[in-house]
């Protein structure tokens, strides 16, 4: 078996440093396997979140060689030879080692008005056509790994957590707005409370999404267009002024 060195950030809210660990690596191993081996052999107190180990739960997000990734889906043989650098997500406060405090995301979810479905058909069923839900299903693939939140400049660099809910919750909003059964209207909130204007469409979120969701093109841009149609279309503005809001 070959050996490989991992430079892992160790520390807490007070500060920390990178520590090198060298472990044996085998065929097919992913970064998370190496972290588990480091825990078992060198640093049992090393903190790291994980669950499914198959890219389905979004727990083991971290930055590997500077890129936000799921450690359970990052094969060692896909990385350039040499030392692998592993550090926690940057957009959120550190708890310990590779674990960050992502509770802010869970608070955002609570702010989003949930589905308000229309009445069922007389036979007790809802009817929706597959082609009408394809886009919604694309957004619902989200595993809440928060890699998109981590890489979003508005959150990562400008720390505008108060103003913008971030890409993850923009697509949550998009799936609700595009849901064929939904009767609510969140456009005003999307503009005023959730901060759609902050996104400047750099598509970094789309690039890191492990589920390959078209976050920017399929989710955020259409929401921005709906906001524009409502607020910046002079004809619509006039009609609203004269006849009142449509909902």
């Amino acid at each position: 078996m070959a050996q490989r060195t991992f430079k892992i950030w160790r520390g807490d809210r007070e500060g920390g440093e990178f520590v090198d660990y060298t472990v044996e690596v085998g065929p097919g191993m992913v970064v998370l396997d190496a972290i588990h081996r480091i825990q078992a052999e060198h640093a049992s107190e090393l903190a790291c979140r994980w669950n499914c180990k198959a890219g389905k739960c979004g727990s083991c997000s971290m930055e590997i060689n500077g890129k936000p990734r799921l450690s359970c889906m990052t094969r060692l043989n896909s990385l350039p030879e040499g030392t692998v650098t592993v550090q926690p997500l940057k957009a959120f406060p550190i708890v310990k080692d590779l674990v960050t405090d992502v509770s802010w995301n869970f608070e955002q979810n609570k702010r989003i008005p949930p589905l308000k479905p229309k009445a069922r058909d007389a036979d007790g069923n809802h009817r929706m056509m597959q082609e009408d839900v394809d886009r919604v299903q694309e957004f619902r693939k989200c595993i809440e790994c928060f890699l998109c939140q981590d890489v979003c400049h508005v959150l990562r660099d400008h720390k505008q957590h108060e103003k913008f809910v971030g890409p993850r919750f923009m697509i949550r909003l998009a799936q609700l707005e595009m849901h064929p059964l939904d009767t609510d209207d969140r456009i005003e909130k999307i503009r005023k409370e959730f901060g759609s204007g902050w996104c400047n469409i750099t598509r970094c979120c789309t690039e890191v999404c492990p589920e390959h969701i078209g976050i920017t093109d399929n989710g955020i841009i259409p929401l921005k267009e709906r906001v524009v149609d409502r607020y910046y279309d002079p004809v619509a503005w006039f009609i609203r002024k004269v006849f009142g809001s449509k909902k």
Partner: protein
Amino acid sequence: MAAADISELQTIEHDVLVIGAGGAGLRAAIECAAQGVNTGLVCKSLLGKAHTVMAEGGMAAAMGNVDSRDNWKVHFRDTMRGGKFLNNWRMAELHAKEAPERVRELEEWGAVFDRTKQGLISQRNFGGHRYPRLAHVGDRTGLELIRTLQDHGVHQGIQVHMECTVLDLLKDGDRVVGALAYWRDTGRFVLFKAKAVVLATGGAGKAWRVTSNSWEYSGDGLAMAYLAGAELMDLEFTQFHPTGMVWPPSVRGTLVTEGVRGDGGILKNKDGKRFMFDYIPERFAAETADTEEEANRWLKGDKAARRPPELLTRDVVARAINAEVKAGRGSEHGGVYLDIASRVPAEIIRKKLPSMYHQFKELAEVDITAQPMEVGPTLHYFMGGIRVDADSQMTTVPGLFAAGECAAGLHGANRLGGNSLSDLIVFGKRAGAGACEFAAKAGQGAIDEAQVHASMRRATDFLNRESGVNPFVVQEKLQEMMSHNVGIIRTKAELETAIEKLKELDAEAATAKAHATSQYNAGWHTALDLRNLLLSSEAVTKAALTREESRGAHTRDDFPGERDEWVKYNIIIKRGQGGEMIVEKRERPAGPAPLVEIANSKIEDLESGKVAADYK
């Protein structure tokens, strides 16, 4: 901390405390909140990460959207036959009847299932289900379920306590009145007081080396309920899912959905032979295709054709794969081949099984639209668990309820794929309702300081002792030992060896040492899990030794075949006065006549109304 007055402990009070936030726990909490009670939901991970997320194929509910011949009686019959008639009759009935409405309710809360051409919820074929029955979203149905419940639940006033691990249940006399837990990020203790507690903690799959389960499945609920005096049942029935990944080693055991076979995938050995035709059990022979030609017609939608043998129940398929590998006909890395590439066009595979496509592409560098997958059995699910009342889900301890995988009864000796997600929502709701009803009549109980102190001391001992064994090493030894001695095929000698080894591992675990502080400490968490894993393993092993027959997921090499007298008994495990584990062979009550008739009927007689037509 150990000597501190408990009045200094952080204390949180709820009417109902739900432990575990997978499908069952979330659904229970939603029911409690809907009934207006103060509800707390505790989970070891972040919300939405529980193993429900890994469920792929779908949730079984006889809605009849794809084949109108389906109804609750056929679903009930399939469930009983799949469970080898050891299921709790009432639970199997309630499940089959209530699942459709529970699924429709999810749609109200935002779930977006795949659709039929008419726009209804689509349903897919699965092992052991006579008709297409599984409501699904591609191969990520569990994610849809958990996210739907999560997104709905956070608006219902449930207080969610994330990354919090419960150490022990606390009792006031006979009754459960709370729990002691710790926050994973700080290691600080927290005391929960509650009028009723619902356990929704899943199984103990992490006691095996090759498993689809994550670290969370350490049998916490089983062990805590057992220590609180509750009875456990049917623990000998541990399901080995036939298709886990086998290569590369780091993903060995990761689940490959049964949906692959439901959508046309077939199993082949290294000689290219489609071997499942050689393993059709008598009971299913009349309803299973016996030629490739007939199986192919079924796949094309011919309703007169019988189902392919790859869709036999999981116990049957797992044993068949095991036998092929043992006979030297396995694949390169000790599995068999699962081939959908030669059966279904590539774009359909990518559409219907997108996460399988990515999983193999990224983890194994295999393109499943062009190559076969290598698969083998993986420990997946506990049919057994805490014994509960069918209607209320109350355990044998007042105030303590259980739902989902940690509860026993619905699945008998073998669970059908798709019956787990529906189990979660049917009995999660029922457990929530049961707990609310209990809480309405009960006040808060008294917290016994001695119990709290004992629990804290056990936890801190791992940190405080000078030296000791590495908890990861003990866990790994346990996993090797259980995989070797309590696997798919069991013998008296191996089970007895396992019991001896468990004693040694118990002693080792008691001396485990966790280094550094209690703050988010993986070694400490692992040390704390060992007690629960070991107790669960002991219960499984002793139950397996007691049941001298082969039924469903429990196969004894020394007692082949089902023995009629054994269907009359459940194996019950409980804690004796002196702390010893008592194993009891207990007679089951007979099933109600109409249900027995339905379960044993010929499908034609059931469908033509000859059987139990008046029973609604």
